[in-house]
């Protein structure tokens, strides 16, 4: 037994980037992916509750939600969805480049992904400014058709909570993309592609949240 322990310790010492509790690189990679999926499962619950509240409020206040949704910017919201879907494509391509050890391409694609994230944030903040001008921000100077004001207020509370939390997540994603663009460029981190895979999973999850937010906030009643 002590002999096998000694060999496995030796092997651990030889394999670059394999931390102590793990037998080998494959086990470590599985554990890292599992940890990210556990985090994403908790994120599903986090955002899921907000979607549940939305569904309940909309079922009880359908007319107000329809009227309030028409006040959001269809053009900016749709354009932003296209930007985010494109960023998911560049992120998937970045992960692929990292897996193929094409460090320069991975760095460039991560940089493009971060830039698309910044573009999304810029469009979103522009929308917030327009919302403010149209008196749609709760607690500031919210004003709406008095018949529907209560439900519209509920809609815009949910609108700012969900898009705000999404924006926080996206900002963290931009930070991660830039950090790993730098690391891919430097090529000094061992087993870097596994970390980039996890950054990709996080980015795609943030995209998934927006995929459901888009119809819920922008497309309630356009026809």
């Amino acid at each position, binding site marked *: 037994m002590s002999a096998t322990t000694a060999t496995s310790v030796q092997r651990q010492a030889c394999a670059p980037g394999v931390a102590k509790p793990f037998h080998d690189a494959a086990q470590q990679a599985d554990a890292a992916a599992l940890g990210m999926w556990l985090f994403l499962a908790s994120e599903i619950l986090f955002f899921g509750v907000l979607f549940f509240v939305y569904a309940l409020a909309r079922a009880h206040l359908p007319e107000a939600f329809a009227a309030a949704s028409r006040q959001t910017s269809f053009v900016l919201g749709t354009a932003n969805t296209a930007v985010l879907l494109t960023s998911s494509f560049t992120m998937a391509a970045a992960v692929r480049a990292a897996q193929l050890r094409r460090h320069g391409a991975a760095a460039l694609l991560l940089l493009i992904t971060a830039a698309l994230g910044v573009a999304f944030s810029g469009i979103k903040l522009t929308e917030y400014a327009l919302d403010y001008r149209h008196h749609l921000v709760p607690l500031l100077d919210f004003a709406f058709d008095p018949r529907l004001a209560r439900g519209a207020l509920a809609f815009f509370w949910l609108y700012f909570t969900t898009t705000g939390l999404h924006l926080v997540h996206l900002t963290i994603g931009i930070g991660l993309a830039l950090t790993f663009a730098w690391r891919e460029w430097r090529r000094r981190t061992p087993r870097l592609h596994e970390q980039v895979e996890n950054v990709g999973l996080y980015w795609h*999850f943030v995209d998934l949240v927006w995929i459901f937010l*888009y119809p819920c906030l922008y497309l309630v009643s356009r026809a």
Partner: protein
Amino acid sequence: MSRPPAAPPPPLRHYVWTWLALLLLLALTAASAWVPMGAFNLAVNLAIALGKALLVAFMYMHVRRGTPMIRVFALAGLMWLALLATLSLTDFAVRLG
């Protein structure tokens, strides 16, 4: 190594086609929202959102490539959410219905 090395990543064109499909679905859902279909507008929007989500999960997040344990973890979040939502809905249905 206790297992064979990871499979090579899929060709780039798979990702390009997925991206184009996502943009096509976005165009469909955006356009359909302007067609008056009553309750079907909501159904179409949700169905397209689900289709986009499945494309991202399977093509970009590779849920099928994950170990069985990863699949269990990914489904666990959805399962707990379904459980919480169902229990909360029974409460609301009884009190507000």
